[in-house]
């Protein structure tokens, strides 16, 4: 779980903050409220999760409860991986 959190945090920094490590955000901060990523970025994020963790996301799963912070994302991915096993 911690490893997934680290990886996802790194992905967000690299792709949505253009590697800017100076912008502080906590792992439970809402991406949207903090303005960390915009609507269009979610598409990129979902594509990354599906490819990196070999899981499939249904349209119904694309909700802020599952995706809107590093913690939520990691928990969701962990759950998906668990189910896939």
């Amino acid at each position, binding site marked *: 779980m911690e490893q997934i959190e680290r990886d996802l945090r790194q992905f967000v920094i*690299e792709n949505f*903050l*253009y*590697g*800017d490590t100076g912008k502080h955000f906590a792992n439970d901060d809402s991406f*949207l409220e903090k*303005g960390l*990523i*915009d*609507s*269009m*970025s*979610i*598409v990129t994020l979902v594509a990354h999760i599906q490819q990196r963790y070999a899981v499939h996301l249904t*349209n*119904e799963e*694309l*909700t*802020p409860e599952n*995706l*809107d912070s590093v913690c939520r994302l990691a928990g969701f991915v962990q759950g998906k991986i668990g189910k896939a096993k």
Partner: protein
Amino acid sequence: MQIEQFLERSAVRFPDKTALVCGTERLTYAEISQMANRLANALIARGVRRGDRVAVCLDSCSEAVISIFAILKAGAIFTVLDHTIKSDGLRHIVNDCSATSLVISADKLRDVEVALEQAPCLGSVCVAGVSADLPEHQRLRFFSFDQTIKGSEFGADAPRKQCMDSDLAALIYTSGTTGRPKGVMLTHLNMFAASESVISYLENDPSDVILNVLRLSYSYGLYQVLTGFSVGGTVILERSLAYPYLLLDLIKRERVTAFPLVPTIAAMLLQFDLNRHDLSSLRYITSAGAALPVSHAQLLRKWLPRARLFIMYGQTECKRISYLPPEQLDSRPNSVGIAIPNEEVFIVDEAGHPVGPGVVGELVVRGPHVMQGYWGLPEETARALRPGPVRGERVLYTGDLFTMDEEGYLYFVARKDDIIKTRGEKVSPREIEDVLSAIEGLLEVAVVGVPDDVFGHSIKAVVTLRDGFSISAQEIQRHCAMHLEDFKVPRYVEFRTSLPKTDRGKIDRREIRHPLEARA
């Protein structure tokens, strides 16, 4: 008719009706009107006078709507800034229009405090999202939005009216070829005329529930609130498109009747099986901002057969220019339609003479919705507004090349300039190039639009490096993100050893763009 009367009239006719929905917050017309009155009185008490410019830097939220109407009630001119604007951009606009007051969220204030130091005209700052602990400052007077609208310090009665409808109501900043955004000056009358025209062909009425996912800094998004309030409908502000599934659920839950789109949103929604969602309440969908691909229009109609689809075209300089009546979609799929009610359009050649059907020329617009010019830019104004058929009047030269058929239907051909349309918004390559040029190590820069299925066009920076310098694409994007709104940050960066030049030695954007378009 003055624009704040849209709210005032509806507050009298439908005081207890839900006017605005933002997340879990629901406000009636009476509540919004009272809160706007309190804020208007507070602005006046803090020195805002008739004709002053007041900037609003808030996300799509009730505070933004209340602020817009409060500013108008105070007799001032509002300008809504993109919430993702950075210090440089904010300083430019606030200084360009000499804004005397600013309404801003507490979060944003922290990011742009430096810019406020360099805005000498600014006298007061209204901060939303804090109830106390406002920053102290020698010159600026900070006050709490929340305390103002909920407290009893300022009265809930409307201040005395000072304006007339030929006064300016808004400055809407839009990208121009010269780089920095320019303020489109619109009177109450301009905005009233545009609203009435749109309402008439969309047949809006009090039963309408408009789902607005567009930003209020954008003319198309702003007018959803204005027209919705004008007819006494309900407007739902949704900040994010990140979760289209929730949006579809919202349409069902709130029984949304009107859904304005830009093609980017249509492309995102069409990734869903719309048949699985109850969207039967939708009376119409509109598409503007960029050309909606014919295939997307066909899919929307197939999946939403009960919703009428209006293809529209416009410019901030006059809000709306044309609409395609839905019954014409099959016979004229590539047209952006006919002139809106109470407007005349014609196509002219280089010398300004009208051309015949099918001949390419510049589109010219005549009507009461045409702007008064660009704030503080007489030369650019003179280029856009030129003498019209009636002595003394000025008509708008759009800079867009069109043809018109014998029945008056318009067909877009091209822009006369290099403006990029991305996500339905105009972006000036020059503005981004100016930001890129400040990066040490870049020798030459050119910004172009490349075709993109979702965005319409994506922004691409093509650069060359100075000898001995090494810089990554990510570093270039990061620099842009620090200085530009999010939607202006280049999606792609390409490094080259040289850039093509024109005969005069200038960088040839067209030459760069065309091979890219050909490849795409």
